[in-house]
């Protein structure tokens, strides 16, 4: 395996990634395998392979069109499953409470995760702090199905994210723009989500991220091939991935939306903006009637393109969560600005 530098951009304003060498052959090899398999007629290794890129990214494919709900207890997990959640996200406190109570927030207690895994048959995800690879190791050992390296928890490393290639468990990471998404994919993320301001019930940031990622992909796809090198430099992302996005016109992994989704209409809007599915955090269990609202968000995610259905689905849901406008939150307290 050849290790070679692919991204040396010390002239960037933020000084991001200075002379760090990426083991880019690994990414290239995985991408190659994903795309060329149907042409590959040769005898492949017949032994069973776990933790491959295909089963990690494939797992996210199976979640598409679904809703992943934050839960803090086994009872909430059961309510979420019953309402039609495609997976649950186990965490200690929902983002709205983290925001209200402050302090350092960390990965959840293993006992709590065990009890949630035992209570539902759908996949269970859990959050690790940005850069905290040992929390991720623990979550993998607990049998969690997906790890969210999340800005909602307090970051453990202000420079490096987790090297996600080292894990069998797949990772989902947040991104506010295409460059950030591709940097996370380069580190091994098998799924990307937007990074709307968690715990606010204000969907405006998630909208911004979805639009930004979509339009940056469209721009790349329209560029002549010889301009992709500079595009990669500007996006602060590896050239191989930039080239792939330019030729396919989409991210190489599933793109969900997250942050501030509180109503069925919010979920449907994100789907119409090109999300493959929806994470709902505080929006469910901080509302007046969690079970009913959860079921409504599930239906709205499936029938996102049908306004008559959406009108029906949105009726009689009781109180939505009390929101906070992102604009009212002082910038240092905005979670979406964590991660780099």
């Amino acid at each position: 395996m050849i290790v070679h530098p692919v991204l040396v951009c010390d002239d960037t304003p933020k000084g991001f990634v200075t002379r760090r060498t990426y083991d880019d052959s690994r990414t290239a090899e995985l991408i190659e395998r994903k795309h060329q398999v149907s042409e590959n007629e040769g005898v492949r290794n017949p032994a069973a392979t776990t933790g491959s890129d295909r089963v990690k990214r494939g797992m996210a494919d199976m979640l598409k069109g679904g809703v992943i709900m934050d839960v803090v207890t086994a009872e909430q997990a059961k309510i979420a499953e019953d309402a039609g959640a495609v997976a649950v996200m186990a965490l200690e406190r929902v983002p709205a409470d983290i925001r209200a109570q402050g302090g350092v927030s960390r990965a959840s207690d293993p006992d709590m995760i065990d009890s949630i895994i035992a209570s539902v048959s759908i996949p269970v995800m859990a959050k690790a702090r940005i850069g905290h690879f040992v929390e991720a190791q623990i979550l993998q050992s607990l049998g969690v199905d997906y790890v969210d390296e999340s800005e909602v928890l307090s970051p453990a490393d202000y420079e490096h994210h987790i090297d996600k290639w080292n894990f069998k468990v797949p990772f989902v990471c947040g991104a506010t723009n295409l460059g950030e998404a591709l940097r996370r994919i380069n580190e091994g993320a098998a799924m990307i989500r937007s990074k709307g301001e968690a715990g606010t019930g204000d969907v405006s940031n998630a909208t911004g991220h979805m639009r930004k990622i979509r339009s940056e992909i469209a721009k790349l796809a329209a560029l002549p091939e010889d301009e992709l090198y500079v595009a990669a430099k500007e996006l602060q992302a590896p050239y191989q991935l930039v080239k792939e996005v330019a030729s396919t016109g989409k991210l190489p992994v599933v793109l969900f939306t997250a942050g501030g989704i509180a109503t069925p209409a919010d979920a449907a809007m994100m789907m119409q903006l090109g999300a493959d599915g929806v994470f709902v955090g505080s929006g469910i269990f901080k509302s007046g009637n969690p079970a009913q609202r959860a079921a409504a968000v599930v239906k709205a995610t499936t029938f996102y393109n049908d306004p008559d259905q959406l009108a029906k689905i949105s009726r009689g849901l009781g109180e939505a969560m009390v929101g906070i406008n992102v604009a009212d939150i002082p910038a240092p307290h905005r979670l979406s600005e964590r991660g780099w």
Partner: protein
Amino acid sequence: MRGTYPTRALRESDWPLVLRIGVLGLQGDVREHLEALESLGVAALPVKSPDELSGLDGLVLPGGESTVIDKLSRLYGLAAVLKAKIADGFPVYGSCAGMILLADTIADPTMNLRGEPQQSFGGIDMVVKRNAFGRQVDSFEVDLEIKGLDGLAGSTPGGAQPPVRAAFIRAPWVQSVGDTVEVLASIPAENTPKGVDGTRTARIVAVRSGKLLATSFHPEVAGERRIHELFIHMIRGDA
């Protein structure tokens, strides 16, 4: 092998001439199945309502969460219509969650808060166990010999097929089958998890029963087209 398939995009005016195959589009990897079908030269249509089931020559049940697809399909009246069609011989292929939905019996259905078990459309006389190979960290891919693929695109000149690269993602297996069910593929004992008694058993992962086809694995995420091709031949009645 891709070169052997028609590459021109289908137009609506082509539809009377080609097969129309739906993909249940409530949740899951719907797009991958639509792409697989389109690459084989049939009209592929997402299906979300009972009305959209009419006029189809066959249906694919995608991978996804069987509990979610079960709930939504009953809620919007698709389940009843589909059950009746399956009983009438309507061709259906199910991958992963789709296999669970085609099973007459689910070994370990999840219970809702009122204590009612999850349901399936049924049609194949088999007992399926959900997430049988384990959690996501146990998900795997493997080369698999599958019966019934000879003569399809991708065959070598001798007629033999290279193995199928099969991705198993929190996959189910078939615990037992009735007399009417043909077993197309199994995972050998050394690649299956140990049972409670500490021994390993070969597990059935692909079956066919009349016009119904089911696989534990996902050909659609591996760029594999032969399973869909087999399904198209089953619809046409020449396989």
